[in-house]
C-alpha cells in the first residue's frame, strides 16, 4: 500500500508552480513592544508518520512548525501555544521557505494577521505581535497556499486561559468561569495521502493540481488514527499510538469529574461528532473563542462541526464505564461518510 501511495505520488499534478501572488519579506514588527510571552516556531518540511491500516504500514509526509526553545520535536499537529488572557504575545516565525503564521480566531492588525495577500509572506524571520483579549480555543496555521499547507499539517492548537488560569474556562455565560478537572484538546483532521507529492507552491500560478478534489484516506485526532500511528516521540524513539488509548487524546476521568473537551476542526470535510448517551449530558459552553451566553446541550444525534470551527464541550460523567466518542467525516458535497475516527472516555 505504501508503494501504491508512492505510485500515486509519481503521477501527481503540480499545475503551474511558482511564487505567483506571494510577497516574501522579513520586515521588523511595527510598533514593537516587549511581549509578556514569546514563542518560536521554525518550519520543518520533513515529518513522516506511519499509519497502520489493513495490515500494512503507510508512510505519510507532513510539514509543520517545531518549537526550538523546547527541544524542537517534530509532531503532528505542531506544538500548541498557551497563554493567559490579557497577555501580549510574540510568535517568532523562522522559515527559509515561504510561509506565514495566522493565529486563527485572533484579531490583530492585518500586518500581524499572517495572510500574505493582505500583508506579506515570511521568508526569513518575523515576530507576529498580538494580544490575547479573550480566553478560549483557537488554532494557528500557515496561510500561504493554505489549501495545501494546512492539509500538510501546518497547524497547531492555541489556547487562551481566562484570568482565573488553567483549570477554568469561560463559558455557559459571559464572565462565567467554570472549573474543570480533566481537559482534552482534539485537533481533528482528514489526510489525503495522494496530496503528499505537491511542491509547496503547487499551482500558485494556475493550472490544475487537483486541489479542489479531496479524497481522504486517514482520519486523525492530534495526528493519531484509530488503527495506530507510529510516531517519533520526544526521545527520538518509535512509539505506536492509537486514539483509543493515547494519553494526548483519550479521556480518563473519575465519576463527578468536570471534563472539558476543546474541539478544533483542522480539516476540510464536515465532522459529525457523537458523544454516547451513556456518558450523560454534554454541553457546548463556548464556540470559536467566545463563551456562549447560555450552554447548549449536544443533541443525542450529535452535532456537525465545519472547517475552522472550535467548540468547547463540558460534561460530568456520573457512571463508571468506557464510552466511545465517534467522529464521522462526511463528504462536503454528497454528505456520505468517507471515514471516521473515535476515542474512548474511561470513567473510573
Amino acid at each position, binding site marked *: 500500500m505504501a508503494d501504491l501511495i508512492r505510485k500515486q505520488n509519481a503521477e501527481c499534478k503540480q499545475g503551474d508552480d511558482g511564487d505567483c501572488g506571494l510577497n516574501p519579506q522579513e520586515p521588523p514588527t511595527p*510598533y514593537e513592544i516587549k511581549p509578556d510571552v514569546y514563542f518560536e516556531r521554525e518550519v520543518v518540511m520533513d515529518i513522516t508518520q506511519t499509519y497502520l491500516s489493513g495490515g500494512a504500514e503507510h508512510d505519510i509526509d507532513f510539514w509543520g512548525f517545531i518549537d526550538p526553545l523546547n527541544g524542537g520535536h517534530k509532531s503532528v499537529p505542531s506544538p500548541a501555544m498557551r497563554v493567559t488572557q490579557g497577555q501580549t504575545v510574540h510568535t517568532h516565525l523562522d522559515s527559509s521557505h515561504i510561509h506565514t503564521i495566522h493565529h486563527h480566531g485572533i484579531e490583530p492588525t492585518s500586518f500581524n494577521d499572517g495572510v500574505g495577500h493582505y500583508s506579506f509572506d515570511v521568508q526569513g524571520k518575523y515576530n507576529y505581535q498580538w494580544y490575547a483579549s479573550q480566553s478560549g480555543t483557537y488554532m494557528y496555521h500557515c496561510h500561504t497556499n*493554505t*489549501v495545501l499547507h494546512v492539509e500538510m499539517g501546518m497547524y497547531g492548537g492555541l489556547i487562551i486561559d481566562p484570568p482565573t488560569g488553567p483549570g477554568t474556562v469561560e463559558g455557559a455565560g459571559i464572565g462565567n468561569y467554570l472549573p474543570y478537572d480533566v481537559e482534552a484538546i482534539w485537533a481533528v483532521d482528514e489526510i489525503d495521502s495522494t496530496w503528499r507529492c505537491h511542491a509547496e507552491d503547487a499551482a500558485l500560478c494556475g493550472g490544475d493540481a487537483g486541489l*479542489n478534489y479531496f479524497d481522504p484516506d486517514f482520519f486523525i485526532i492530534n495526528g493519531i488514527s484509530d488503527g495506530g500511528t507510529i510516531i517519533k516521540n520526544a526521545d527520538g524513539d518509535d512509539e505506536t499510538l492509537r486514539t483509543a488509548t493515547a494519553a494526548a487524546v483519550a479521556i480518563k476521568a473519575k465519576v463527578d469529574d468536570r471534563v472539558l473537551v476543546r474541539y478544533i476542526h483542522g480539516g476540510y470535510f464536515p465532522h459529525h461528532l457523537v458523544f454516547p448517551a451513556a456518558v450523560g449530558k454534554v454541553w457546548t459552553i463556548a464556540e470559536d473563542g467566545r463563551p456562549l451566553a447560555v450552554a447548549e446541550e449536544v443533541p443525542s444525534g450529535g452535532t456537525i462541526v465545519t472547517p475552522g470551527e472550535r467548540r468547547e464541550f463540558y460534561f460530568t460523567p456520573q457512571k463508571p464505564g468506557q464510552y466511545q466518542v465517534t467522529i464521522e467525516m462526511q463528504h462536503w458535497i454528497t454528505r456520505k461518510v468517507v471515514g471516521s475516527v473515535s476515542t474512548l472516555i474511561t470513567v473510573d
Partner: protein
Amino acid sequence: MKRRDFLKLGTYSSAGLVAGNISLLAWTPRAHAAHLPVNLEIISGFQKMIDNKGLYMFSFSGLSADGKKTTEFPGPTLICQEGDTIDVKLTNTLSTHSSFMVAGTDIAHEVAPGGSIQFSFAAPAAGSYLYHDGLNNGVNRVMGLHGALIVMPAGKKNISFNGGPDFVRQYKWLLGNVDPNWSHLVNNNGDDYVTQLSIDQFEPKYFTLNGASYHDTHTPDTELMGAIGEAALVRMINAGLAVHSLHFHGNHVEVASINRQNFSSHRKHKDVISMFPEDARDAVIPFEVPRDIPPQEFKLGFDIVEHPQHYPMHCHTELSQTAGGGFYPHGMHTGIVIGQSPETESEVTQGMNSL
C-alpha cells in the same frame, strides 16, 4: 433556439451593477404594502471564470419595463418588505423545464421549455431567502439559476427582524459552485441534459461569492467596509451543492438568524459560519477595532482611521480557495476593510435607501 450570449458579470461589471439598475424591486421603508412587478427571463450563456475560461451556464435575468436585461448572474436581488405582493412574469428560453422556488417556503412555480407564466406571491416573513430553480435536486440551481430574496420588516431599515441587532448597511453573499464538466456536458448535449446529472458526479472547480471569485470580489457589493462602529448585516446564502465554512478575519460576527430562525437574545459570536446547501444565515459584523491589537500599539501611534485594516473572509473548506484545481486563493474569498466607510454602498444598502 439556443442563446449564446456571453454573460458579462461579476467582476467585470459590478460598478455598472451597483450604479445602474439596483434591484428589480425598488424598496424603501414605507407604511403601506405594495404590489411589486418582477420580470424574469431564464436564459443561458457563457460566464467568464476567474481564469478567463468561459463556461456555459443558466441564469435568471431581470428585465426592465422596456425589456432590457438588468442583472444576470446570479439572478437579480429581490428586495421587498413584509406585506408586499410580488407579481412575477417568468419566461423560460431554455430547452428544459425550469422553475422558480423560494427555499424554506411553499412558493414553487414550474415553467415548460419555451413557456411563459405569471404568478403572484405574498412576501414571506422578514428574512433572507434563496430563490432558485429547485428542479433536478439542485442541478439547475448550481447551473446558475438562483438569486436572493430579501424581505425587510415593514417600515424598518436598520434591523432585519423586530428584536434583531442594529446595523447601518447590508450585504448579501450568494455562494456558488461551478463544475466545468457539467457546463460542457449541458452545452454539448442540450439544456435537458441537466436531468441526467447527479450530485455524486459533481466536482466543482470554481467557487464564487455573488458570481465572482477572489480577487474580483473586491467590489462594493461583496467586500465588507465600514468605519469603526458601522455595523453591517451580512446575508449569506448557499446556492451551491457543497458545505462551506465562512471564516471572518478581523472581527467575530454576531449570528442574527439561521434560516429565518431569529435570535432576539443570547446571540452567538462566531468567526466561522457553517453554510449547508440552501442555508440562509444572517450575521452582523460590528466593525469594531480588532480586539487583539495590543493596547500599547495605539499608545505608540497606531491609528486605524489613518490606516484602515484589510482582512480576508474566506471559506475554510480550503478546497473552495482554488480555481481550475489550483490558483490559490482565487475562490470563495473577499475582503473586509475595517476603519473606512465605502465610497459606493452595496446593492442591498442602496436598494434599502433608494427613492
